[in-house]
């Protein structure tokens, strides 16, 4: 379960204001909203990369808020995150990037790790690129590799920041399917930010719409389209900020 209780966050000005929601274990939340509304900030709050100005964020039964960096590091072993601009490590090959979470965690032999890397690369339909440098990949390939790295340690919590940005519909659809498969197989709780509402709504159980720093809608996907604010947004009629 992921819980936000009255969470507010701002830098020079307020970004998120009094956000409250609870996402059940094993479900997927599709987070939508206009650019700059605070979706990435919300994901970073979920990972403990940012500390809220007010309120409380919890993963499972444990609060992320107010923990020491050592404690957060332990909690983050249960997290997989695919960043908006992939954040692949330039100084490692694709294979090393994907294997990195497992090597740091320990407990597996090199042979087991190599097998898991190959399995992950096969899942993302890129089985032959383990020795390439990230700089040699296209945008779509990088996104899929970032996803593979986020999922290789089968984390209970997966966060994806715009994994389909700038991708063709075929690759976008493949990425949503992959996230859904991993969630089903490992029972992970996922939060996915995307502007591809069509693809996202097919896969997610819940929809969250951020507007003006507040959660304008949070509820089951099947009810989302009948909600005027969500319908307005998905049809491109949302008022500009």
């Amino acid at each position: 379960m992921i819980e936000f209780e009255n969470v507010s966050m701002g830098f020079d000005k307020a970004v998120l204001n009094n956000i409250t929601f609870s996402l059940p274990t094993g479900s997927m939340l599709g987070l939508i909203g206009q650019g700059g509304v605070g979706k990435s900030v919300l994901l970073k709050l979920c990972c403990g990369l940012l500390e809220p100005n007010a309120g409380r964020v919890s993963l499972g039964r444990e609060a992320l808020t107010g923990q020491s960096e050592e404690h957060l590091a332990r909690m983050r072993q249960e997290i997989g995150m695919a960043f908006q601009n992939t954040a692949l490590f330039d100084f490692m090959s694709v294979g090393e990037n994907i294997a990195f979470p497992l090597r740091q965690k320990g407990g597996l032999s090199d042979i087991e790790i190599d097998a898991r890397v190959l399995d992950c690369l096969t899942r993302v339909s890129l089985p032959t690129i383990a020795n390439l440098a990230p700089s040699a990949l296209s945008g779509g390939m990088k996104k899929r590799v970032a996803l593979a790295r986020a999922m290789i340690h089968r984390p209970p919590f997966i966060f994806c920041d715009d994994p389909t940005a700038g991708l063709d519909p075929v690759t976008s659809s493949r990425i949503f399917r992959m996230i859904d498969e991993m969630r089903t197989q490992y029972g992970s709780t996922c939060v996915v930010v995307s502007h591809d509402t069509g693809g996202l709504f097919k896969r997610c159980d819940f929809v969250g719409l951020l507007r003006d720093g507040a959660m304008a809608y949070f509820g089951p996907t099947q009810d989302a389209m009948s909600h005027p604010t969500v319908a307005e947004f998905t049809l491109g009629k949302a008022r500009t900020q």
Partner: protein
Amino acid sequence: MSWGSFVRSADEMLTLILALVTGALGGRFDARETWQQLYLVGVRSLPIVIVTAIFAGGISAIQVSAHVVRFQAYDAVGWGFGFVVFRELGPLLIGLMFSGRVGAFNAAELGTMKVTEQLDALRVLAINPLNYLVGPRIVAMVVMMTALVMVGNVFALLGGMLTAQVLVDVDPMVFWISLTDYVRPVDLFNGLVKAGLFGFVIGLVSCRHGLAVDGGAPGVGRAVNQAVVASALGIFCFDYLVTAILP
């Protein structure tokens, strides 16, 4: 630089030192990354250090030679050369070269990692960037700067001997005897202490500026520029302090 930003910068530097000392005492620095950095920082810098050292040795010999001819003090060439190169010119010139090559690269690499969220990605993978990236780099710079100055001293000696022989016809054996008779081990030690300190300063300053990058590619450029300038200033300040304190 305003007083406010100077104080903030000093505060960040002290916080960084404290975190690194804690990491080092806890044995948390990544061993594999440390070995890799030792190679990248040290072995890859060898050619440029050797060239710098040969020229530094040659220049010192040229400067000393003018006075040698004037006073007919041929047996003082080795001493003059050793004193200047081992204590001062070697660590200083190699330090500045090292700052330009390794420090600038380091600030650019860490800065790029910051703006492309690679540092955040490390943190999400439960890895402390200070222990994984910064600590190994600073250790490598201290160790390799000291080692490079030792290697540089040998090549500076060769450059100095050759120049002295060609310019003022000082026999290499006379040069060597003058060097070993008058230059004390403490002169060599003095230079090596400076080298280690310069390595620490370059490492700390370049890492701090790299980690503090803000504002995309222009921010990375600014950080590299600031890192090189601040490292050079740090080198001169510590050079002054060590020269004043050590015998």
